[in-house]
């Protein structure tokens, strides 16, 4: 018998028949289908018990309360707003919602690093042990002080509302250096304006909860102004009809059709940067038609009428100057807003019981001092600073938390030095002018004296400073750069030593004061989970360095650790026995200036417990009854400026007037004006856009690597640019490739560029997308305050 073909076929037939009666085909089909559902390279999230922890978001100064969901106590999977929080009431902004992408970012710095190659060499960073790294810094600090040059140590911090900044202040006072700076903010200039007008060192608080009419000159309310979530919630309340209460009207003045402009009840489109002129035009109508708060002006205001200066010279007052120079017709010519509309606005503003004037710019940068004074003056005229307190002065430090620093001779000598680069014209007030641009300018150009050691803390000036190339040049000139960055950002790249801080969600920290809020505020940020890298809280590092230095520096910073400093704050609150520890039931409308809140706490331990559980401490701001100006009144004509302007200066130089600093460049070659804008979907601050946020950007804002600039259809036609065309944007600072979004969101001859793109550091999800607006805008140093202001830059746009 031979096995023929036939037999084989029969065998196979049987085998097939048999197989069909076994699980093989069905099981294999099923299992391979299941296999495709569970590809092994797809991550499978660890399961377990889900718990919640409470904290405070430190990603911006907004002070939102957060809750994080953790798996098995060690893996954060979700961040949401804390519904019991006094300010954010459960709300969150996209940056906070994407917060875990910073915590788990691949660009986190996981351990101390030392630059072993040339400064700026990304390959040169080598791990170094904490004790070695700290020794290098301590030795340098000791050596510089021994040479008698303590003033050549400087620090730039981006966290201006934390106790760490107070530790830096204490450290710099005791060590002996005047060169401590924060990243520039609009409050740098408003605080100077407030100090000149009232004598107080205070932030402005706006009672938006009580307002029935808000006249807003350019502040990007819905694009991330002040404490963003608080503003969003107030805006939401304005949109809701509340029985028995008049609806709040929002009138927005801006050149670009931003979301705030679109969402406002009325949008007044003006030419870029002319908002202050419009404010003075409105003041003109108020004065001419006697619509201003005459009682407040006559009792509490100095410089409205003509006045005599210290030298006995008769000077014109605010009334005379405004009446002479800012008639609606003149202002209409400057701003492009109809004279009729200006009159109408003034009358409408005067009719309101609870009106408030807000102002600001798209970027949170210092403003022209005289323009800040103009908006402040308009608030004074409508009585917003009177007992109604629509605008109140909130002390930037509610209490003297740290004891006076112990200073030796060396410290006195060092601290007495002129801050590097600071112009002599800077007005002497209680407020220390934050002249960072002047400092960097002098450092970059090797003027006055060198900087031996530069600390950079929670700041990224090499990206985030307007005219950021200045920061890069300055970083290269500093003797030694020590960064405390949590992320390998543009600035950390130029460090010699990186002593990484815990990430914003991992550290114990605090929030002192809420920008724009009409009450004093304090909150403690507790970590939502344990730090998972070899990082150290910068507060602890500063205390450790002080201890190593010994002497008066160690005496001035005697605390064991940063937690002890924060507990001292809680103790101060308990000791002061005023203010309230509040949750979501807190109604800011109930706070009145000068009327201290009756404390609902006693023991320091209690205060600490509540603060760490997410309660916030609030207190009423001071009342404006006694200004500490030379006249004892609110000064429209600021006598504090006498020392800053020449003795034969025009009367105008003491008070608010419209004076834009002329942009450089030739209008023939650069015929357009570049303005920048921000959006809540773009993080312009210390942290870059998270990958989640990139999904929010429309494809006519960012397409692949190209950012779009907004151009009016008429301008586009004139320049021969079509929608989505590739173009080159040129300013006096340089040029960059862009694309064109043709949209009537901007007036003719204006180009608008978004802020927050164009990073060169971090990872592939962040870098190389678009253009950094800071690298193209021009900084004008305010001739009085020396602060770096930004308003508009001449530009050219041409087909690429």
């Amino acid at each position: 018998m031979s096995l023929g073909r036939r037999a084989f076929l029969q065998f196979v037939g049987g085998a097939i028949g048999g197989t069909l009666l076994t699980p093989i085909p069905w099981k294999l089909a099923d299992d391979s289908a299941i296999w495709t559902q569970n590809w092994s390279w797809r991550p499978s999230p660890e399961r377990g018990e889900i718990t919640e922890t409470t904290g405070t978001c430190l990603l911006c100064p907004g002070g939102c309360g957060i809750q994080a969901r953790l798996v098995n106590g060690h893996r954060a999977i979700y961040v949401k707003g804390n519904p019991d929080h006094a300010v954010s009431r459960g709300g969150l902004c996209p940056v906070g919602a994407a917060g875990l992408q910073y915590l788990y970012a691949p660009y986190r710095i996981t351990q101390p690093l030392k630059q072993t190659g040339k400064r700026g060499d990304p390959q040169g960073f080598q791990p170094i042990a904490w004790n070695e790294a700290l020794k290098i810094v301590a030795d340098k600090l000791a050596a510089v002080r021994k040479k008698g040059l303590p003033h050549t140590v400087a620090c730039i911090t981006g966290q201006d509302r934390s106790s760490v900044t107070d530790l830096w202040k204490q450290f710099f006072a005791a060590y002996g250096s005047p060169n401590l700076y924060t990243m520039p903010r609009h409050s740098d200039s408003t605080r100077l304006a407030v100090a000149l007008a009232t004598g107080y060192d205070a932030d402005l608080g706006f009672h938006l909860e009580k307002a029935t009419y808000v006249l807003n000159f350019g502040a990007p309310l819905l694009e991330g102004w002040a404490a963003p979530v608080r503003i969003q919630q107030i805006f939401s309340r304005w949109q809701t009809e509340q029985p028995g209460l008049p609806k709040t009207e929002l009138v927005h003045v801006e050149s670009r059709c931003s979301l705030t402009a679109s969402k406002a009840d009325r949008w007044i489109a003006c030419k870029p940067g002319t908002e202050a002129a419009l404010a003075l035009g409105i003041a003109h109508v108020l004065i001419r038609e006697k619509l201003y708060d005459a009682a407040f002006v006559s009792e509490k205001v100095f410089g409205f009428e003509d006045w005599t200066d210290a030298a006995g010279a008769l000077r014109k007052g605010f009334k005379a100057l405004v009446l002479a120079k800012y008639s609606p017709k003149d202002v209409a010519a400057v701003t492009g807003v109809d004279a009729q509309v200006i009159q109408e606005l003034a009358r409408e503003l005067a009719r309101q019981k609870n009106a408030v004037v807000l102002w600001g710019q798209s970027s949170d940068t210092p403003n022209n001092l005289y323009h800040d004074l103009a908006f402040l003056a308009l608030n004074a005229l409508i009585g917003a600073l009177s007992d109604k307190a629509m605008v109140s002065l909130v002390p930037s430090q509610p209490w003297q938390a740290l004891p006076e620093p112990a200073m030796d001779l060396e410290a006195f000598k060092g601290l007495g030095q002129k801050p590097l680069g600071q112009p002599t014209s800077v007005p002497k007030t209680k407020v220390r002018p934050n002249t960072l641009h002047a400092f960097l300018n002098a450092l970059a150009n090797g003027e006055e004296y060198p900087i031996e050691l530069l600390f950079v803390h929670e700041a990224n000036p090499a990206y985030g400073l307007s005219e950021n190339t200045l920061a890069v040049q300055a970083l290269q000139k500093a003797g030694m750069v020590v960064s405390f960055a949590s992320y390998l950002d543009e600035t950390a790249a130029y460090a010699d030593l990186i002593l990484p801080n815990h990430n914003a969600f991992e550290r114990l920290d605090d929030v002192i004061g809420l920008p724009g809020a009409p009450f004093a505020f304090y909150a403690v940020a507790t970590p939502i989970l344990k730090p998972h890298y070899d990082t150290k809280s910068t507060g602890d590092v500063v205390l450790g360095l002080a201890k190593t230095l010994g002497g008066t520096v160690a005496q001035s910073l005697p605390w064991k650790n940063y937690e002890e400093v924060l507990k001292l704050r809680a103790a101060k609150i308990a000791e002061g026995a005023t203010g309230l520890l509040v949750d979501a039931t807190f109604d800011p409308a109930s706070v009145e200036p000068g009327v201290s809140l009756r404390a609902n706490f006693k023991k320091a331990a209690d205060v600490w417990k509540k603060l760490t559980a997410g309660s916030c401490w609030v207190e009423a701001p001071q009342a404006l009854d006694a200004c500490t100006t030379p006249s004892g009144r609110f000064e429209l004509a600021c006598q504090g400026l006498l020392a800053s302007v020449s003795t034969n200066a025009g009367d105008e130089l003491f008070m608010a007037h419209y004076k834009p600093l002329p942009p450089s460049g030739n209008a023939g070659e650069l015929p357009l004006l570049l303005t920048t804008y921000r959006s809540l979907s773009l993080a312009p601050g210390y942290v870059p856009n998270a990958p989640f946020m990139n999904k929010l950007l429309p494809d006519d804002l960012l397409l692949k690597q190209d950012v779009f600039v907004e151009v009016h259809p008429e301008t586009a036609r004139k320049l021969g640019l079509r929608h989505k065309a590739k173009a080159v944007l040129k300013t006096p600072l340089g040029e960059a490739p862009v694309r064109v979004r043709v949209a009537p969101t901007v007036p003719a001859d204006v180009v608008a560029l978004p802020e927050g793109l164009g990073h060169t550091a971090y990872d592939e999800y962040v870098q190389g997308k678009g253009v950094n607006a800071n690298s193209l805008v021009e900084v004008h140093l305010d001739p009085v305050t020396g602060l770096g202001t930004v308003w508009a830059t001449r530009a050219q746009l041409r087909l690429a």
Partner: protein
Amino acid sequence: MVIDLDKCTGCGACAVACQQENNVSFRPDESDKLRTIAWMTLYRLDNGKDYPEHREAMLPRPCMQCDSPHHSPCTFVCPVNATVRDEHTGIVDHIAVRCIGCRYCMVACPYHARSFNWWDPKWPKTMEAMLSPEVSPRMRGVVEKCTFCHHRLNRARDRARINGEDPDGVVYTPACAEACPTGAITFGNLRDPHSDVARLAKDPRAFRILEKLHTEPKVYYLSSDQWIHKQSDNDLS
């Protein structure tokens, strides 16, 4: 769900919270809007007028969870029953593991509410730690969409069960509504006439997108701007 466009400031917190909650994957470049994965998307609308009469608004768009049994476009075309409208809750379920990736539903959906996984979802190694076990990560080759966070409904039902409450009477909040800083998103049971959503859906400001297609979306929008109402119909007549 009711979304008040008068309150919405287009910040995008809803969309980010949604991505975090639902393990939505992301890529270095997200500017190809036909290939990007987004359950909640923000659309920019404008009134078409010239400066300075120009106005813009943002419109957040989750899945509309169409209610019409015969016009719920996606469920109608799915060849494998991977997407089915649940009678009880009204949620249009989509089960990624059942999906064969034919993308008929994407073609059928008039709201572009569905996304396709063109690539293997890949997270930077360190970011795998933030993935939620409550929602399974999808794989290459399947469609995904907004689920109204139905895993939160399941959790709420379980909580009710162990507390001896009625699991069918639970209320829950999806991630987008929870995150919204202006409270523009209201979520609830449309069938309950006493719920906030049912009341708001009858508001004179209320409208639905492409209502004339009779897809019966369960997402209502509120706006006092007529030009926004007008665009919701996309010139269908």
